[in-house]
């Protein structure tokens, strides 16, 4: 390759190719996966990393899974020094205390060799519907230790120099509730990583590994420069925000609060100080450090224009997260219910950033995240794991109403089709409606909440569910005089008779044929004081 090929234009061409490869990996993954949570809800991501472990390109699925794989890869690179890594290896990690998120998120990495040298890594993270543990679906806000949360993979070789480590696959199969789907999904992740490897090798063959590395470095540098240029326009003040959970993951625990201070520091970086946040909890709504970073990346990216991706953004953010807090817990605190707190963290950060960038200010959105994982046998004796997640109201903006019924912030999960629910599971969804009046009042109203009613058609079912923002102090906040959104709730109407019964916000429930469970999400906050309308 001539020197001319390392010019900025070539680098831009190579950078576009890297983004394309990450996208191609994700296509390979979702098209061949089995669990609805990957194939329909897109709860996964793929990424490419340079030889030093920095993410240089990623696919664009849900933000909650984005920008955190660097942490796991760092742990893997520490555990497996360069001379212990061979072409054809695949390494799996999900340990929340080694850079992982929660245990159902398996991260798989494969090294990329070109011209005999390690040029980078290909990686995939995917949420598996069950990885074993105390409850079906693994996730329960009531877990108190990570040991209740299924298999833990501390960065071990799933495939060694191209040879599958059958013992690991057997172990997974013996420990999870839907082994066929889980093992197939692991294969889908491996196929995605292999595709990334292959494509990056082709790119290196064509342009040379040095040009590819230079292109990747340039993307990181340009994105970081763009972010700093945006921060430079923001006022030199400290924005403060806080928000609390319903409780501490269990009703008897005091509401956990997140407190943040955000300012542009003397280096032109964004200092995000979460020191005021409450301590870790004996429940599972603690957030592993990598997920805390993912929430911050999401929030900041919403306020910075022109980024090609999230890569490089982390270099411009200085996060202070005290060890032992709910956002940086210590082993063995439970973390499976972390997403509730991640959404609340995103809400608090968006509040703080709205103060710094008022033209983009937005009222509070739903972080209730009503979710259920119910296990039921259908009348043919087939065991099914049924899962669904409900969107809620988006916050109102300075110039328009909030969005009705959306999956907010770091989520972007599709609602399960009622027809799919009844075709494939012993459940009937009786209604799915917007909740009138649930959005906070204001000059612009908050988005409406949603209510969905599920009737059990099978003989029996049991499982976990959780929902936030059921307490008055935790509802989506109005902004600039706008009203708060309406709270979320879970209820059950037993077929055997009786009135509709309110359930605790997080729990484990047993149901019988004909029972009707209802989830209600929260409405978004309003913006600006409501004014009398001129007819």
């Amino acid at each position, binding site marked *: 390759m001539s020197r*001319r090929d390392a010019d*900025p*234009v*070539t680098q*831009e061409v190579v950078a*576009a190719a890297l983004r*394309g490869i990450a996208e*191609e990996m994700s*296509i390979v993954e*979702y*098209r*061949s996966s*089995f*669990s*609805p949570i990957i*194939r329909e809800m897109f709860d996964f991501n793929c990424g490419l990393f340079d030889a030093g472990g920095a993410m240089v390109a990623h696919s664009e699925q*849900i*933000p909650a899974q984005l920008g955190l794989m660097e942490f796991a890869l760092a742990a893997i690179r520490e555990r497996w020094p360069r001379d212990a890594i061979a072409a054809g290896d695949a390494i799996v990690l999900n340990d929340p205390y080694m850079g992982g998120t929660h245990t159902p998120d398996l991260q798989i990495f494969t090294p990329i060799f070109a011209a005999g040298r390690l040029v980078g890594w290909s990686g995939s993270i995917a949420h598996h519907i069950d990885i074993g543990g105390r409850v079906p679906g693994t996730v329960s806000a009531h877990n108190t230790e990570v040991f209740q949360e299924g298999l833990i993979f501390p960065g071990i070789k799933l495939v060694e120099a191209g040879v599958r480590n059958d013992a690991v696959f057997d172990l997974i199969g013996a420990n999870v509730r839907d*082994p*066929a*789907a889980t093992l*197939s999904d692991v294969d889908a992740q491996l*196929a995605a990583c*292999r595709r990334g490897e292959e494509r990056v090798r082709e790119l290196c063959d064509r342009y040379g590994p040095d040009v590819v590395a230079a292109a990747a470095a340039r993307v990181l540098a*340009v994105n970081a*420069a*763009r972010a700093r*240029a945006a921060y430079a326009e923001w006022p030199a003040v400290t924005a403060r925000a806080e928000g609390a959970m319903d409780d501490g993951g269990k009703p008897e625990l005091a509401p956990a609060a997140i407190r943040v201070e955000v300012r542009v520091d003397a280096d032109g970086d964004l200092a995000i100080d979460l020191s005021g946040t409450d301590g870790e909890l004996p429940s599972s709504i603690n957030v592993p450090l990598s997920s805390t970073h993912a929430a911050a990346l999401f929030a900041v990216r*919403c306020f910075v224009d*022109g980024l090609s991706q999230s890569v490089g953004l982390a270099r411009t953010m200085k996060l202070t997260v005290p060890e032992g807090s709910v956002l940086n817990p210590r082993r063995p605190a439970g973390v499976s219910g972390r997403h509730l707190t991640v959404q609340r963290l995103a809400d608090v950060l*968006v509040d703080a950033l709205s103060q710094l960038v008022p033209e*983009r200010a*937005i009222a509070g959105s739903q972080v209730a995240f009503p979710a259920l994982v119910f296990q039921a046998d259908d009348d043919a004796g087939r065991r099914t794991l049924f899962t669904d997640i*409900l*969107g809620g109201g988006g916050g109102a*903006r300075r*110039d*328009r*109403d909030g969005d*009705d*019924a*959306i*999956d907010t912030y770091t989520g*972007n*999960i*599709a*609602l399960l*089709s*009622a*027809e799919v629910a*009844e*075709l494939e599971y012993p459940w*009937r969804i*009786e*209604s*799915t409606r*917007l909740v009138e009046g649930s959005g906070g009042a204001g000059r612009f109203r908050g*988005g409406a909440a*949603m209510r969905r*009613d599920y009737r059990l058609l099978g003989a029996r079912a049991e499982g976990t569910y959780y929902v936030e923002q059921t307490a008055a102090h935790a509802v989506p906040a109005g902004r600039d005089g706008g009203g708060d959104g309406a709270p979320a709730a879970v209820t059950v109407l037993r077929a055997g008779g009786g009135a509709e019964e309110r359930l605790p916000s997080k729990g484990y429930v047993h149901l019988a044929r004909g029972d009707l469970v209802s989830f209600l999400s929260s409405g978004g906050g309003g913006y600006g004081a409501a004014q009398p309308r001129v007819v």
Partner: protein
Amino acid sequence: MSPVRVGIDVGGTFTDGALVDDDGRLRVLKLPTDRADLARGTADGLAELADRGGLAAASLDYVAHGTTVATNALVEGRLARAALVTTAGFGDVLEIGTQQRPRLYDLGAPARRPLIPRDRCFEVRGRLAADGSEATPLEPEDVVLAAQAMRGAGVEAVAVMLLFSFVDRRHEEAVGAILEAELPGVPVTLSCDVAPEFREYHRANTTALNAVLLPLVGGYVRALAAAASERGARVPVHLMQSNGGVSTAGRAAEQPVGLIASGPAAAVIGGARQAAAVGEPDALTFDMGGTTADVAIVLGNEPLQRFQGEHDGQPVNLPQIDVLSIGAGGGSIAAVDDFGTLSVGPGSAGSDPGPAAYGHGGTAATVTDAHVVTGVLAAGRRLGESLTIDREAAVAAVDRGVAVPLGLTVEEGAAAILRIANANMAQALRATSVARGHDPRDFALVAMGGAGPMHACELADELAIPRLVVPRHPGVGAALGLLLSDVRHDLRQSWLRQVAAISPAELDAELGRLQQRARALLEQSGHDERASSVSFELDMRYAGQAYNLTVPLQRRPVDAAVLAAAVAEFERRHRALYSYTPAVSATEIVTLRAHAAGDVGSGRWEEDGGEAAGPGAGARQRQVWRDGGWHRFAALGRDELGPGTALAGPAVIEQEDTTVLLTPGWTGTVHASGALLLAREGR
């Protein structure tokens, strides 16, 4: 005497026409579109075409028409005041959608805009279970009350989507009958007719889109028939559908949602048929115009279809040619940001003001300007009737917009624009192939559109594509496609079953019902069994997957061997696509498909083509900037290239509707059809 046949494609800016006269000779035509009155403009175009062929409009025997009338109505929001009737509990189905945000990092993004607002969505009691049995009887009174409210609200069309109507039509049909009695003259669209597949939101939205388009498209079809008749053309017009087949205007007016991608589909058919004529059954059609590049995959002479699409943010579940539209065209604007990053598109100078080189006041550097600066488009060259290439304006635009900010010479700046544009297109093309399980290297590239043939060699190099086809008239591909299309109807039926639990006879009976419906549609266009065919496909998946693969079914009647062959084909394709066979081995059928094709005698003509000229035509030369310097390229005129002429890059070939760039390493010949067949040396 052969029948006089016309294809007329009306796009946003240009109307393309092609006519095969009674001697079998082809004439093509490009006119500006009459945007003020599309029906009048189309009828005028028909008359003009006939006139150019020295014929009266009354002598036209067959007219096929591609139209953007449905697409424009959607994009411009000129939609009917429609109502929706749903199963009780699901009146918000359009409002809620999938609950996903279109732009993840844009908290201020505008909200979804349902096709039918909430106050015109009505719920009726009555529900079918997933197996089609009646869980709750239908309440006719609810429908009557809804109809009364609709009357008060001035509703112009109604969509009906009840749960599980794809399993059993009876509730939807009953609702439809009541509405028609209560609201005479108001068209009613049933979801079981338009989109009989599971997933209520996508079915509801497709049905709603059909309803909101019905009055407008119906009006257009009637106006066109009247205008054409006034000019003496009395033959019925066939309309191009998104699936790449034509249907009678009457049928198209009943299912306007099927017209949503009419224009791009016609061009793909044109590319596919012309590739087939030169012995390329597997092709990527690449149609690059002023604002977009449309790409489609052709496999075994047939364009790949997809069963869901999105148009202007609205999901549409309807079989349609799988066209990928990339925001890259001749008018795509190149810009350098504060951080020294060059981007090309998706912003476009469009046709007004257009590229700087058009001299109509455009100052932004565009892809076309880069072609001018690098000498591919010659200074002073006339494009169409009103444009002359202004090289100085192009140089100034590229210099100011790209070269100076990047510290490059103007030629280097122009070359950079073309590299980025090609890289973007290659990326999109690769992703689209992979997502459909194909490798671009296995295809020939068919270059169409005004800009396609200028990019084809370099795009093919980028993707390691070995062969190129440049049809004789790349600029009117859609009009030619219309002449080459058959009548086509696609029917499907959701039919979720595990293969192990299916009896072949049961499957065959279900397919028989589809075949009957297909035959009925073919009869509407006057096609009996001799002039038509019906083929079948199955959407299959492993139990638990959500993404299907579609495999052909060999024949009816279905027996165990036919079913086993389909399963084997599914397994083979899955393995080829994803490199593994899952631990789950149960296979399922998801959807049954029938394709009805009616022959309309499409497809032969003679070219006016030039003489079999020798390579002496290459005596003229042109300086073209490539690889960091000016190089001598042969300058040829397409009209001079008769069949059999040998070609070798570097060369620039000019013709009325485009310019073909042959870079070094590409050689080939002129085919008898006038198409250029090119191959990359050493591949």
